[in-house]
């Protein structure tokens, strides 16, 4: 049972939601405000996570100085800085252009490989779900329910053109067709570390 928020769960929203009045490093540091760490450990954690998402050199930049992709990286750093056991991603790349999205998908795989935590990513993009997830759960609307579950065992790092992935992608697309026209969602689950 889950009641309310917890530092054990990180979240990345569809939009970066960085505080415009704080720098990247201050934004990430705010995630640690209530973490049981010393000042020094907090500073190190902030720097480490900014480096993890590839934003070194932008720690002192303000959100309005970042591109959409960079802002979303900062949001991922903020979601991870508490070292949560679970990271929730709510259509994290939905608002980005196709090229940036593809780049960040690769990045997210790298980050996952580094952090080895469970990630739940909600997306409408079947390619994204199949590329990133170890388990792709297709949801059906009204009432919201699990419609199908697909397991992917393709080794990482994955390539979009991998035959296995293409096969699963087609199966997911077919399942979505069955589930109805009105906006089913695919929710891939990143594997447990």
């Amino acid at each position, binding site marked *: 049972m889950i009641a309310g*928020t*917890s*530092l054990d*769960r*990180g*979240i990345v*929203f569809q*939009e970066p*939601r960085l*505080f*415009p*009045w*704080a*720098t990247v490093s201050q934004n990430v540091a*705010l*995630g640690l*405000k*209530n973490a049981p760490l010393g000042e020094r450990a907090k500073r190190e954690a902030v720097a480490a996570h900014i480096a993890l998402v590839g934003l070194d050199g932008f720690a002192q930049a*303000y959100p*309005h*100085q970042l591109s959409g992709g960079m802002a979303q990286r900062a949001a991922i750093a903020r979601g991870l800085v*508490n070292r949560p056991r679970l990271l929730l991603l709510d259509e994290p790349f939905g608002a980005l252009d196709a090229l940036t999205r593809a780049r960040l998908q690769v990045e997210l795989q790298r980050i996952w490989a580094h952090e080895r935590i469970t990630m739940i990513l909600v997306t409408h993009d079947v390619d994204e779900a199949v590329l990133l997830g170890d388990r792709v759960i297709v949801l059906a609307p009204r009432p919201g329910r699990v419609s199908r579950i697909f397991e992917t065992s393709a080794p990482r790092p994955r390539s979009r053109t991998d035959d296995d992935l293409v096969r699963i992608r087609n199966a997911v697309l077919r399942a979505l067709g069955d589930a109805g026209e009105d906006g089913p969602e695919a929710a891939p689950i990143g594997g447990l570390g």
Partner: protein
Amino acid sequence: MSDAALRTTLEPRIPALAGLRRISLRIGEAAFRRLVKLGWLLILPAVTLPIWIVGTGHGWLPEQILPRPQDVLHTLRDMIASGELAQHAGYSLRRVAFGFAIGATAGLIAGSAMGLSRRVDDYVRPLFTAIAQVPALAWIPLAMLLLGIGEGLKIVVIAKAAFVPVVMNTSAGIANVPKAFVEVGETFRFTPLQMLRHVVLPGSVPPIFTGLRYGLTHAWIALVSVELLASSEGLGYLLVWGRQMFWLDTVLVAMIVIGVIGFASDKVLAVIEARLQRWRIDDVR
């Protein structure tokens, strides 16, 4: 477009030269823009001052109603030299400073409480609106009976005038901090104090300062009103007294001084606001 034409448009210019031209263009542009802005600022004075000079020179209006600019200047110099002006301005400044400080502080506290808590807002808002609708000037008769005509009266009336816009803008600003930001604070389990310090206050700096600047303007308006009715010193008193004596040069001097002090104090608030919002400096000119 022909191939040749396309090539010339796409061909990179010599980078260093282009860069240099860009920089010099930018400097020139900034200076030009500033000049244009100054020009716009000066249009109104540039039109009215000559009319004033010519009009009074030809005696279009009696001198008791509209004195010549040079007379006003002369009176201004005299009053500065005699220390009279500084004395009156000092009285007024002190009243505005105290009244504004009290009114704005109370307004920030009440406005924050109303913005943060739905319940406080529900209880307090009707009474506040009723009080706010009665102008500062209309409070003076009652306040006079309660407080006499001393400094207390002036400060209370000025404080009330500053209080109203500060409360309105602070409560609206705080209530309108995007929910999305508050949710981020919640995921990090911010305490109410952390939420205030890191999310709510930084997110409502612009409306709060709008309120403070309105409050200061209203404080000056109230000052003049209350000095008109119950004072024997101060810039407002100078205005009434000057009018009664038909010393319109004195009236104009008082008006100019009030305008200049009001402008300067508003500027001070604007600078503080800009400093609190340094993150926006790239956007704001």
